[in-house]
């Protein structure tokens, strides 16, 4: 067997699924319910010191010097470090290493990390921070991407004179322009063309657990870091690079993790700081960020300003789509290279595009760095395009749901940008939300003030593009069979709350015929577990799941052989299920799996196995063609029911029906949890959240009171509907469920507001002020006043 084997979407035993497909409690549910689960900040080591980090008060400044002598002299302080202690740059994407663990010569946003202190307790460390003198030379700060684009100097990331002469990019972080098919001809041949401008604001992940890291450096030179990371493997590589240690001497462990959503994907300053401080002091060092610091760390949703132009024929079929996107990257690259591609590459489904062009530019600004947030890079364009589809439907006088149905790309197709789409349950998703919301009898028929809106989307199930290109598997697992009847799974996959360890348990129990309780999982410890690339791009169920099936199928052969030999029957008669082996032709003959393991261990020696998964060769044949290529795509449709209060401008979402094609639902309860959590997060971004800075670049409200995330009372009724398209390559046909269902929430609200009161909200967030302004404009336009057009032009900045 090999890492590229396809295992098919059928049950492993002819008797059918016994574990998969049922609502199973999670492997760690009761540990979490009783408070027994240990998160990073719950860990305490003897003699442990506490670290705190000094942050920049300037949005953009050169560091002339740092004097830490007074801090170091404070009783209880054990060490102070600055950028000079860790001068090697890193970046999660190897092509853009532009970060220092602590600022070396420049700070690039208010909150950028400058120095770190290790002391007996947090109070002492905080007192020491106040004694550090930093001499700054403030530089012009860029807070708007248009400004940074128009003014190449001073550069936020300075190039050498040679680089400047060769490829002077000013403050451009990444530019991608790709064209597929003849866009001009498509637009010229269209019966209707809509061109408009859309804006997506910044939002951030806000996991309830703040980032935390704990480091220990042993006398024999092994660095161990426990961290609230969602990608252990990349943290290990980054620590080794920056601290100049061999990767084999760095161990990274992810304990229980309190939410991530993409916000714990990059290596962070605190991981390097605790490691370096532990190495310098010879004592364990922990750092827990405050909530305020979590907001500075950010790596959240990129603000985007987007111009979309789409053409359609009278029958609703799209002829061409043209996009121009300006991306505000904040102060560092992070995953920005990928973001810039994803902003264009992930739009080419679930609808057929005959011709498509996108031109996206990511620009550095002096704000907290943006990065991957749930639905990385594609939530913003999806918002713009799904609103534009409704505008096309309006122009054509067509039902917006019907317009989407007519443009469905189909199954087993190649997209215009060369991506392979196999299973595709989008039509079933549309049918499901249409029926559940009673769309046919209610859309465009509700009284003014209340409306229904629809939107669709597509997302990747893992990516063909590993962050560092290499020919090794993307997912590896190891199984250990114990003669007690227990199987232990070792996986580098990160369970960040989405339940990947529970899925691992279900797959192994299904394959080896075990009770789920007899499978335990050890995950995300780089010393114990084979490499997996971690929890991002919605890859873990798909890739780790396939790796587990690979390992189990190899082991199963041994187990079946041992039983067949013991019973003196042909192997085809042996079946396993739910803790027992039985003879298909003799119901009386049974063995417990414990007995089976012992027979097999006696026959084959100690039992263990590895398994792996790697993506098939996919992607378009052009530069960047593998970015956005995925072995499978998930599909979603939403219908939102919203109410608009025309007096206050307040939008209330009453109901949200979400139909998501996740392939086979391995555990429908966990799938539903992902669907509901995604929709909640999208609705929150549209109506409540805004990750903004003030005119000095200072975060507008780095607290959970000011950055308003919804409570139980603010969250509408969410109706999760599961569509199972059975993917040909996913484990038992499964695809992702954790990111796709966020996308349509946001445009569906805008479209519902149009149905309710006839205004188009194209600029996020949908605040009462914007609703009132649009209603006023609507009234003015009804009066036919010239005033309205002037007001509209003035209210919109048009950078694209």
């Amino acid at each position: 067997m090999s890492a590229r084997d396809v295992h098919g979407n059928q049950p492993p035993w002819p008797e059918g699924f016994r574990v998969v497909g049922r609502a199973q409690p999670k492997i760690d549910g009761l540990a979490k319910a009783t408070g027994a689960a240990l998160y990073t900040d719950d860990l305490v080591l003897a003699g442990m010191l506490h670290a705190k980090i000094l942050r920049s008060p300037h949005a953009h400044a050169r560091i002339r010097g740092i004097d830490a002598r007074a801090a170091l002299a404070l009783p209880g302080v054990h060490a102070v470090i600055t950028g000079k202690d860790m001068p090697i740059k890193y970046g999660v994407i190897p092509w853009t290493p532009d970060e220092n663990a602590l600022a070396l010569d420049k700070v690039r946003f208010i909150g950028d990390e400058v120095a770190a202190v290790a002391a007996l307790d947090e109070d002492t460390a905080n007192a020491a921070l106040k004694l550090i003198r930093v001499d700054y030379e403030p530089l012009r700060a860029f807070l708007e991407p248009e400004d940074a684009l128009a003014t190449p100097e001073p550069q936020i990331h300075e190039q050498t004179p040679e680089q400047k002469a060769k490829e002077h990019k000013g403050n451009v972080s990444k530019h991608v322009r790709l064209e597929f098919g003849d866009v001009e001809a498509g637009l010229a041949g269209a019966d209707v063309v809509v061109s408009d401008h859309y804006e997506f604001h910044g939002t951030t992940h806000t996991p309830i657990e703040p980032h935390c890291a704990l480091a220990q450096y042993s006398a024999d030179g092994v660095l161990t870091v426990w961290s609230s990371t969602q990608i252990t493997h990349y943290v290990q590589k980054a620590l080794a690079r920056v601290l100049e240690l061999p990767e084999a001497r760095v161990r990274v462990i992810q304990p229980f993790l309190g939410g991530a959503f993409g916000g714990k994907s990059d290596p962070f300053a605190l991981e390097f700081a605790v490691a370096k401080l532990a190495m310098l002091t010879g004592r364990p060092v922990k750092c827990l960020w405050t909530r305020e610091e979590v907001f500075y760390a950010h790596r959240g949703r990129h603000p985007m300003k987007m111009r979309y132009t789409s053409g359609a024929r009278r029958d609703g079929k799209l002829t061409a789509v043209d996009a121009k996107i300006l991306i505000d990257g904040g102060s560092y690259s992070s995953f920005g290279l990928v973001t810039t591609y994803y902003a264009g590459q992930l739009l080419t489904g679930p609808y057929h595009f005959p011709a498509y062009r996108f031109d996206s530019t990511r620009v550095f600004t002096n704000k907290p760095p943006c990065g991957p947030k749930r639905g990385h890079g594609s939530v913003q364009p999806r918002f713009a395009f799904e609103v534009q589809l409704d505008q096309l439907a309006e122009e054509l006088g067509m039902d917006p749901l019907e317009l989407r149905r007519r443009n469905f790309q189909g199954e087993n197709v190649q997209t215009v940008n060369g991506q392979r789409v196999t299973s595709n349950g989008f039509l079933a998703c549309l049918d499901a939300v249409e029926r559940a919301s009673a769309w046919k009898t209610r859309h465009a028929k509700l009284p003014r003030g209340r409306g229904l809106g629809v939107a669709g989307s597509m997302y990747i199930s893992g990516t063909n593009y590993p962050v560092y290109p290499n020919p090794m598997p993307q997912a590896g697992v190891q199984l250990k069979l114990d003669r007690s009847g227990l199987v232990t799974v070792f996986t580098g996959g990160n369970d960040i709350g989405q339940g990947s360890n529970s899925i691992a348990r279900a797959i192994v129990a299904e394959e080896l015929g075990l009770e789920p309780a007899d499978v335990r999982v050890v995950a995300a410890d780089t010393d114990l577990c084979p490499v997996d690339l971690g929890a991002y791009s919605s890859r873990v169920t798909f890739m780790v799941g396939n790796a587990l099936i690979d390992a189990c199928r190899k082991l199963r052969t041994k187990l079946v052989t041992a039983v067949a030999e013991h019973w003196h029957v042909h192997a085809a008669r042996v079946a396993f299920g739910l803790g027992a082996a039985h003879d298909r032709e003799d119901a009386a003959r049974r063995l417990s799996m414990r007995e089976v393991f012992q027979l097999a261990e006696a026959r084959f020696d100690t039992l263990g196995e590895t398994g792996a998964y790697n993506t098939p060769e996919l992607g378009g044949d052009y530069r960047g063609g593998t970015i956005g290529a995925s072995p499978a795509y998930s599909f979603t449709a939403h219908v939102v029911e919203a109410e608009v209060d025309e007096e206050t401008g307040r939008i209330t979402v009453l109901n949200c029906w979400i139909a998501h094609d996740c392939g086979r639902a391995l555990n429908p309860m966990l799938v539903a949890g992902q669907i509901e959590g995604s929709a909640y997060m999208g609705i929150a971004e549209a109506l409540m959240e805004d990750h903004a800075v003030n005119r000095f670049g200072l975060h507008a409200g780095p607290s959970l009171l000011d950055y308003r995330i919804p409570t139980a009372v603010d969250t509408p009724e969410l109706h999760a509907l599961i569509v199972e398209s059975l993917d040909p390559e996913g484990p038992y046909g499964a695809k992702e469920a954790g990111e796709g269902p966020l996308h349509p929430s946001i445009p569906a609200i805008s479209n519902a507001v149009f149905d309710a009161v006839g205004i188009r909200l194209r600029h996020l967030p949908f605040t009462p002020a914007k609703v009132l302004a649009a209603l006023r404009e609507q009234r003015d336009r009804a009066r036919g006043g010239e005033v309205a057009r002037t007001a509209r032009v003035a209210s919109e900045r048009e950078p694209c």
Partner: protein
Amino acid sequence: MRVLSLDVNGDRTEVAAPAHWTLLEVLRYRLGLTGSKQGCDKGDCGACTVLMDEKPVLSCITLAGMCGGRRITTIEGLMPAHLAAGGSGPDPVQAAFDRCGALQCGFCQPGMMLSARALLNEKPHPTRAEIKAALSGNLCRCTGYTQIVQAVELVIAEAAGAEPPAPAWAPGYNPWKSPRSSAPSASPRSDRDHANEAEG
């Protein structure tokens, strides 16, 4: 330093702690009761919620020095109290959160479950709106609250001997009908497309 006399989960203990320490700091860093979480340290998120004389309080903004003579219950205290009262296994709130999938990352849930416990102690049959209101001081970022509310409704239904409401995603069967057991109790999903029967 100050010596505090506390009653935590029924244990009377004496703890020395700085005078400005909060109840959360004493619980986590002196008593090792790390089930109570710090999410914001400002009283905004509710992850640190504990019960003080049966009422939910935010332990991150409660000075430990003010807790003398009060009965404190943390998440670690729920199951032992349930067992001591003659129950089996975890508290029904904890069991229901587990059975309904309400624990994703789990970080906010100790506080959430204690708020739910306090609500049900005071009012055994709250409406859905009352449940949401009682939990609105506890922020969750994973679930969208749906499975949390379903878990609380499961506790209420089972206490009344009634069947809990089935979720939208389970057409034709109710995954929460019978209590947790090692053998799967829910009927399996068929291989065909469930969208056909997914009436919300």
